[in-house]
């Protein structure tokens, strides 16, 4: 008993130290955002004069929000971003999980190992290398730019490598082969085995990939700016970009736009957290 109590006390102490550490790091991590939050309620002169003051000389102002929203055509671009991010994320998860399954389980097939090697290699291609060729081919030759569907497919194409890479790791080390073999013996086809047995076990990785990709799509500027040319179908980052300039910037507006752009993805993240936690159960299957 005393042994256990001792252990419990040691654990408590350890947790206390950890919490202190976490709080300190946490403050470091969000300090810049607090700065954003403070300055979003000030006008530009006050921001430049003293970025650290809580309220500027010209007083507290909320005008940055309606201004930013109007200039961005917020609800429309929000709708576009949501649509594009959702579709591209789901598509990425489905095609990459499928691809990684066949790659892991049939690693000896030439096609599999080649595809995987190509994908890994492609992850280090700087986007700037592909930028002009990409628009030359799909705009210049096929003329299919300026559509949300094209953007969704391109987003998926660009993120498939990394998602496959991550699912590859997860299937490789966390999904026991015995389970699949059992399913096959029970008469499942491989297609069924994948969807019924393997995919559900990948939940923590799905949640991770979903967050990472959704965030990347939500924030991506360069690719959408190349693909989408009509204002009607702009996404949030393109609309926000209108605030930055070479010769002048309205920092207050930028900060407001920034907050508006961040909120949805933050909410998504908090929501998906649960599934990452649910990974504990998924992992336990293996033991």
């Amino acid at each position, binding site marked *: 008993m005393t042994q256990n109590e001792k252990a419990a006390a040691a654990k408590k102490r350890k947790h206390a130290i950890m919490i202190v550490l976490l709080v300190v790091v946490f403050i470091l991590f969000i300090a810049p955002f607090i700065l954003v939050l403070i300055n979003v309620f000030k006008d530009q002169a006050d921001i430049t004069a003293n970025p650290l003051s809580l309220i500027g000389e010209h007083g507290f102002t909320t005008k940055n929000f309606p201004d930013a929203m109007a200039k961005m055509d917020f609800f429309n671009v929000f709708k576009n971003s949501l649509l594009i991010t959702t579709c591209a994320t789901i*598509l990425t998860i*489905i095609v990459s999980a499928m691809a990684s399954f066949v790659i892991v389980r049939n690693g000896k097939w030439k096609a599999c190992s080649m595809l995987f090697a190509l994908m890994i290699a492609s992850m280090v291609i700087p986007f700037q290398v592909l930028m002009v060729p990409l628009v030359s081919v799909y705009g210049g030759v096929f003329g299919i730019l300026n559509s949300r*569907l094209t953007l969704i497919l391109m987003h998926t194409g660009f993120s498939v490598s990394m998602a496959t890479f991550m699912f590859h790791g997860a299937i490789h080390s966390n999904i026991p082969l015995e389970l699949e073999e059992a399913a096959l013996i029970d008469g499942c086809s491989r297609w069924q085995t994948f969807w019924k047995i393997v995919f559900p076990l990948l939940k923590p990785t799905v949640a991770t990939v979903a967050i990472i990709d959704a965030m990347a799509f939500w924030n991506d500027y360069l690719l959408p700016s190349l693909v989408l040319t009509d204002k009607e179908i702009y996404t949030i980052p393109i609309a926000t970009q209108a605030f930055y300039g070479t010769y002048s910037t309205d920092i207050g507006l930028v900060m407001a736009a920034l907050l508006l752009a961040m909120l949805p993805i933050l909410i998504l993240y908090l929501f998906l957290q649960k599934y990452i936690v649910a990974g504990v159960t998924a992992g336990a299957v293996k033991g």
Partner: protein
Amino acid sequence: MKATLKRVVALMTVLAMSVLLLAGCGGSSGGEEAPSGSTNGITIFNSKMEIQDQLLQMAEKYEAETGVHVEVYYSSDTVSAHMATRYSSNNPYTLSMVDAKDIYSLAEEHAIPLDDEEWVKDTGYAISIGGHVYGFPVCVEARGIIYNADAIKKVTGKDFDPEQYKTLTAWKGLIEELKKGGMESPTGVMKEDWSLGAHYLAQVYEEQDDPDAFLMDLSAGKVKLMENEKFNSLMDTFDVLMENNYAKASAISAEREISEKKLAEGEIAFMFGGNWDWSQINQFDYTENMGMMPVPQDLDDGMNEMLVGGGSKYFFIDNSSNTSEEQRQQAKDFLNWLVYNENGQSFLVNDCALVPAFSNIELPISDPLGASVSKYTNDGKLIPNYNYMPDDHYAILGAMFQKYLAGISDREGFAKDVETYWHTKTLTSHSE
């Protein structure tokens, strides 16, 4: 297991539906909204951030007035990179606003000649290549020393008259006086590479008798900058700016907004810049008693009575099959509207606070820096911009100039850097 399968099926259905929905949207937006390729209205690319707001508002009024739909676009990307992607994807703007150097690289292949336009006779700033006019000048911009007259008067007690401080000796005297009077550091220096490299250093070339010949000689190794009168004269002035810089201790981390704020509010009295700085200065508690003066120099070649500048930002009209004849006409009409319509003129001068490049526009310039530029322009006291600089000039030599500003290299080292840079270039003459 069943439940999971159901969920997967549901997911797939949602996905399929959303894809279909999107395909539908894509189709319909092509149908009603008229993409840039169709004949209904024109698209304008704006590369001058500070007038984006005004352009957007103008577009609405313009449509109400003329019935022509105008879409205004802006990109914070490098102008040439943005143009490259638009041309690669076969999706050019009807009217594109670019920098002078871009006109030289783009126009012959992508622009229509504007020789027969009425406005050509009313401006001295249009860009012609091979005998054809391609570039419509959006405005005139000039650089020199920006001063805050109120700040000076507050210390000296006298009205500030820039005419009296044309020479470096006189100007230095004034700075000493300001320092004695309590203004510890009367100047500001922008550390931006474009300000140092493309503006201040460029002035060394532009103030030569024949800039083109000078640069040819420089690249051929025939010029020793340390022996060049102009280089030394301008660097002497720069040394004074540097010596009295409020941010002397950390000159290359001085932020532009802070310098402009100090100038606007009179904490410092002088800064090298241009009339585009007004869009920054007017964000702060500024005084109207500001203006621009030539860079003071002790040489008596008359250059210390002139600002350096000329046309800035040019419109060209796309010549590809993506733009219809009708759109080209609408674009030409728009340019004419800017020059000859009362509302167009007022848009340029009052809304955008630009100095127009057209002699027929007589509206008074509202901002003090623009007013100075306009005065020097009308008096013919403007040294023309040199528009043929190699594309990497401002970045590379801007960085070398920053080294000088930071005290890492001295004048001799900097001169050597400039010479070395030019030695790697093979130039062709541009004199027409």
